[in-house]
C-alpha cells in the first residue's frame, strides 16, 4: 500500500511542477477532467449498531408464525406497508415507500454474518473487519475495498470518509481515510478561510518532514483542510425536500451529502446509528423501534433526495451486527438473535424486490431453535456492491477467507 500512496503523492507532486501557485487539489481535479470516461462511483455504508430487529423492520406479514411468536410487539397486517403480499415495511419506514416504488430500494432478508456470536462487540467487529470469526484481522473491509480500485477521476484525501470522531474499524487500514465529526471543526488554529499562521507553520513542518509515516498523513491532512475550505461545503444547503431529522444520524448524512456535492472525491463513506438494542418494551407500530426507524429512514430518504443526480452513481447499504430473537421475550422486547435484513439503495440498484431466500419461521426452520436463520452472507451482498458497482474485482482481498463467486451474486445491481 505504501507504494500506492507514494505513487499517488508523487503524481500529485508532479502535477504541480511548473504551476507552483496552483493548489494541488485543483491540479488533481484537472487531471481528472482529462479522463472524461471515468465517473466517480460511491459506496455509502450505514451501520445500525445494537442489533436491529429485522423482523419488525421488514415484516413477514404472510407468516402466521410471526404473529404467534410476537403477541404484543407484532406489526399488525393492517399497519404494515405491504411490499409484495408477503413482506411489508414497518409503518415508520413510510419515507422508504416511494424509493421502493421507484425501484431504487432493494431489500435482502435473512442476511448477515454467519458467525454464531451474539455479542455486540464481537459481531460488530467481525462485520466491520469483514472476517467473521477472525479477530486478528487488523483492517476493515471498506478500507480494503479501496485497494486495486480502478483509477478514480480524482483521487483525494476525501476518498474514504467516516462521519464520527475517529476512524471506525470498517475504515481502518492502509488506505488513507478521514474521520470527521463535524465539517466545521476540521481545521487547525481556527476557521480563518485564508488559513491561519499556525496552520501554515504546521503545514510547512509536515510537508517538509522526512518522517515516513507522519509526512504523508500530514500532507494529506493539509490537502484535505485546504480542499475543504476551498470547496466550502457549507454552501451546499440541503436540496428542496431533503428534510433531515434532527439528531446525530441526520447530521451525519447531511454533512456527508455536502462533502459529496462539493465534489471532494468521496468514494466510500461510513455513518452509524445506535439505539436498536430493544430488550425491553420494544414497541410495535409506535414506541422505541418506531422512533428509531423514523430517524433512520427519514435521514436516508433525505440523503437520497439531497444527492439528486449524484445518486445515479451512489449505492447505500445498511447492516447491523445480528438480528433479534424471533419470539418476543418476557419484557415485551427481543433478545440477541442471528440473521437480519439489509437495505440497498442506489441509482444502479434493481429495487422493488426482496432478495434472498426466506428460511421460514417454523420452529424447525429457526437457527438454534430461536432466531431467523441466515440464507445470505453479508459478504455476498457487499461483495456484489464492491465488485459490480465500485469495480473492484479483487474480492478475495476485500473479504479474505470467503469465496465470493460472482455467479452467486443476488444480482440486485443492474
Amino acid at each position, binding site marked *: 500500500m505504501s507504494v500506492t500512496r507514494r505513487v499517488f503523492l508523487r503524481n500529485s507532486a508532479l502535477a504541480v511542477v511548473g504551476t507552483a501557485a496552483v493548489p494541488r487539489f485543483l491540479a488533481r481535479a484537472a487531471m481528472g477532467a482529462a479522463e472524461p470516461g471515468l465517473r466517480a462511483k460511491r459506496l455509502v455504508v450505514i451501520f445500525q449498531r445494537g442489533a436491529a430487529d429485522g423482523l419488525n423492520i421488514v415484516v413477514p406479514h404472510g407468516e402466521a408464525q410471526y404473529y404467534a411468536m410476537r403477541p404484543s410487539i407484532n406489526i399488525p397486517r393492517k399497519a404494515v406497508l405491504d411490499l409484495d403480499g408477503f413482506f411489508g415495511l414497518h409503518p415508520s419506514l413510510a419515507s422508504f415507500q416511494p424509493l421502493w416504488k421507484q425501484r431504487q430500494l432493494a431489500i435482502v432478508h435473512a442476511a448477515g454474518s454467519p458467525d454464531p456470536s451474539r455479542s455486540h462487540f464481537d459481531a460488530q467487529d467481525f462485520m466491520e473487519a469483514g472476517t467473521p470469526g477472525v479477530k486478528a484481522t487488523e483492517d476493515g473491509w471498506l478500507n480494503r475495498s479501496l485497494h486495486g480500485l480502478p483509477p478514480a477521476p480524482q483521487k483525494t484525501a476525501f476518498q474514504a470518509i467516516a462521519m464520527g470522531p475517529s476512524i471506525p474499524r470498517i475504515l481502518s487500514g492502509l488506505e488513507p481515510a478521514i474521520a470527521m465529526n463535524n465539517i466545521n471543526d476540521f481545521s487547525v488554529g481556527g476557521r480563518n478561510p485564508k488559513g491561519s499562521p499556525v496552520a501554515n507553520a504546521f503545514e510547512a*513542518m509536515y510537508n517538509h518532514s522526512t518522517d515516513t509515516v507522519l509526512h504523508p*498523513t500530514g500532507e494529506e491532512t493539509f490537502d484535505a483542510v485546504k480542499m475543504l475550505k476551498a470547496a466550502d461545503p457549507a454552501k451546499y444547503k440541503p436540496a428542496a425536500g431533503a428534510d433531515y431529522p434532527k439528531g446525530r444520524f441526520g447530521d451525519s448524512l447531511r454533512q456527508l451529502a455536502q462533502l459529496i456535492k462539493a465534489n471532494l472525491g468521496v468514494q466510500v463513506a461510513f455513518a452509524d446509528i445506535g439505539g436498536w438494542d430493544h430488550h425491553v418494551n420494544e414497541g410495535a407500530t409506535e414506541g422505541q423501534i418506531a422512533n428509531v426507524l423514523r430517524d433512520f429512514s427519514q435521514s436516508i430518504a433525505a440523503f437520497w433526495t439531497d444527492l439528486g443526480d449524484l445518486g445515479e452513481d451512489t449505492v447505500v447499504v445498511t447492516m447491523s451486527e445480528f438480528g433479534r430473537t424471533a419470539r418476543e421475550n418476557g*419484557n415485551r422486547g427481543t433478545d440477541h438473535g442471528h440473521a437480519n435484513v439489509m437495505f440497498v439503495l442506489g441509482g444502479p440498484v434493481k429495487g422493488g424486490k426482496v432478495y434472498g431466500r426466506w428460511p421460514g419461521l417454523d420452529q424447525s426452520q429457526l437457527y438454534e431453535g430461536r432466531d431467523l436463520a441466515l440464507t445470505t452472507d453479508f459478504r455476498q451482498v457487499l461483495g456484489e456492491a464492491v465488485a459490480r458497482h465500485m469495480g473492484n474485482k479483487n474480492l478475495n482481498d476485500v473479504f479474505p477467507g470467503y469465496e465470493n463467486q460472482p455467479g452467486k451474486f443476488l444480482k440486485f445491481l443492474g
Partner: protein
Amino acid sequence: MRLGRTKFATFLLCFSLACIVPHVLAKKKDKATSSPSDPKLALHALNRLTFGPRPGDVQQVMAMGVDQWIELQLHPSKIDDRALDARLEPLRTLRMSSREIAEDFPDPQEINQVMNGKRAMPSDPARRAVFQVQVARLQDRKDRKEDAGKNAVAGPATDKSSRTSIEGSAMTASAGTDGGTTADNSAMNGAMSEPANSGGSNDAMMAAATPSAKPTPEEQEQARRREQQLYADLEVQQLPSLPPDQRFKKILSMPVEQQMLFADSLRGGKGQEFLEGLNPKQKETLLAMNNPAIVVMGELMQAKLLRAVYSQRQFEEVMTDFWFNHFNVFVDKGLDRVLVTSYERDVIRPHALGKFEDLLVATAKSPAMLFYLDNFMSVGPNSAQALGIPPGPYGRGPYGRRYPQPRPSPGKRPSGLNENYGRELLELHTLSVNGGYSQRDVTEVAKVFTGWTIDKPPEGGGFKFDPRMHEPGPKFVLGHKIKPKGESEGLEVLHRLATSPQTAQFISLKLAQRFVSDDPAPALVDRMAKTFLKKKGDIREVLEILFHSPEFWDDGAYRAKVKTPLEFVASAVRATGAEVDDAQPLAQQLNRMGMPLYGAQPPTGYSMKAETWVSSSALLNRMNFALALTSGKIKGVKVEAAQLAGTSASPPTDSDATLSALEANLIVGGVSKQTHDSIAAQMGAAKGAPQKPDSKAGAGKPVAGARPADVSTIAGLLLGSPEFQRR
C-alpha cells in the same frame, strides 16, 4: 506505512543537524555500557519507560546512570510516590471495594430494584439522597413514557427518535479506532456515563440498564423549567451562601422534589458553587445525586491521568497500562462500571511486574473480566443448573424445605455455554490467534470455566465457584485430558497456558512492540520468550532481557514509536511542566482523539501500532490540543507560558533564542531542521505582520524579547510537530 530503517536513519541524520547534542550519533555500537553520560541514551530510556520526559529528567537519569535508573524503575516499591498519593487522596472511590462502590454509587439495576420494592431504600442519609433522586427520576420518566404512550397518536416524533438513537449508542458504538464512533465524546456529560450494556447477552442485566438514558428534548426542557424553579426557590438559591457542612446537611434533608431540582442543576458539570468548600465525600455524594456512575468513572479517569503525569513510579504505570490493555475490560459495559476500579487496583497493578501466571489467574477470577467476557453466566449444558436439578445440600426435591433461592423465571435463567471468555483467553490473553488451538479447544476450555462466576453481581460481589453451573465430566484441552475436579480444572488450564511456549512468544512480542518498535526483531522476541519459559513467566526478568538488549538500544529504535493519544497527551503535559488541577478536560481530549480511557470496547484493547493513530483527524486533534494546552485553554490545566522557555538566570533575549530554548525544553533530543525552519519562518512572518492582540494566550510573565503569545504559540507548534508525535 512501515517505518523503513534506512528512512529512519536519514531522519536521524537530518535531526542531528539541529540537535543540541550532535555528537550522540557518533558510532555508538555498544550501547549503555559505552557512555553513561550520553543524554540520548537517557532520553531513549525515558521515552520508553515513562510517559515522556519532564524538564530536568534527562539530567537526573544521567546523574543516576541509565542502568541504575532502569533498575530502580523495575522495582517501583523502592520509589517514594507520596506526592502522587496526596494528589489521589480526594478520589475516594479509588480506595473502595466494589461492594462499597455499588452501595454508594448504585447501578440502574439497583435503582430499579428499589423502585419496584425489591430492595429497601438505604437508611444512611447520604446514600438515601442518592437513591431517592435516582428513583424519583426513573419514576418520572416512566410516568412520562406512559403518558406519551397514551397520547401517541399524531406528530412525527423526530425529537423522540433522537433519544432512542442515543440509547445504547454509548456501548454499541465501539470505542476508539477499533470500532466506530465513540458516541458523542465527553465521558463526563455524555455517552460514557449512560447506562450501557450491549457487550453481553445477559438479558436480565440489560433489561435493567435501560432506565436512565440521555435526556430527550422534552426532558431537557423540563430540566430547564426545573432549573428556573430552582432559582426561584429561595431556599435552594441561598444554599451556596451557607457554610459547607450546613449546606450539605440541608441538601440531604430537602424533600425529594427539591433534591431533584438541585441534582439537575449539577448536570453537565454546572453548579460548582454548590460544591465549594465541601469535603471529598460530600462532593461525591452531591455529584452522585445527579449521576452515580459519573463519579466512579470520573475518578478512575482522573487517577489514570494524574498517575501518568505525576507518578514517580512511571514504569509501573506504563506496565499497568500495558497489562490493562492486554487484559482489556470495557468500563461502560454494565456492571463493569463498579468493578473496574478494583480490577486495575487489585488485579492488574500488583502483578504488573510479577509472574504472568499470577496475573492470568487474577484476571480469570476477577469479577470485571468474568462480567466483561460473560463467563459469569456460562453454564455447563449438563450441569445441575442446566438440567434443572434443584439445589440443596441433601439433594432434596423441588418441594424440599431447603430451597435457598427463589426460582428465576425459566426464560431468564442462563442454561448454556458461553464461549466468549474461553476464546479470548486463548486468542488474546495467552496463545495468540495462531497459537495452535482449535474450535474444539475453545469449547472445551469454556466447559472447564463453567461455574467461575460472580457472587451477587449487582452488589459488586467477588469471585465464586458455583458447582451447580459447572459442566461435569472430563475435558480435553490442547491434547490433554483434564480430569473432573471442579474449580481446579480451570487452574490447571491456566497453568498450562501460562507456561506454553506460544504464550511466551506472544507476550514477548507484545512487550517488544510496546518498548522497541512495531515490528521488533524476531531474535529479540525469541530471547525474551526463552527467558519467559526459563524464569517461569517472571515479567521483570523478561523486561531485564529487553532493556539490556542491543535491539532496544539500536539507533533504529530511537523515536521509532508513534505515541498513542494517551502517550501524546500525558507527554505534552509532562513536557510543559503543567499543573493539573482537574484532569477531566484531558480525558475529554482523549475521547476526541479516539482513545477514551477505559473505553476500548473490544477485548483486543487499543492498538499499539502507528497506523492506528496516524490519521488526518488525529493529527488535527493533536495540533489543536497542543495549541490549546500551551495557551492555557485547557480547563483545569495550568501552563506557565513564561516558564516554557526556561526560568534560568539568563532568559532568552530574542525570538531565535526563545525558539531554541523552547526546543531544548520541550523536545529533548531536538527537532529537525525542517521543523525548526518552519517555525522560524512563521515567527519571521509574524514579526512583519501587524500584531493582533491575542488576549487569551499566554497568561504568564513576558519573556524579554518575545511576547508571551509567541512563547505559547511556538510551544504549541513544537508539541504539534512530527517529532513530538514520536517517542
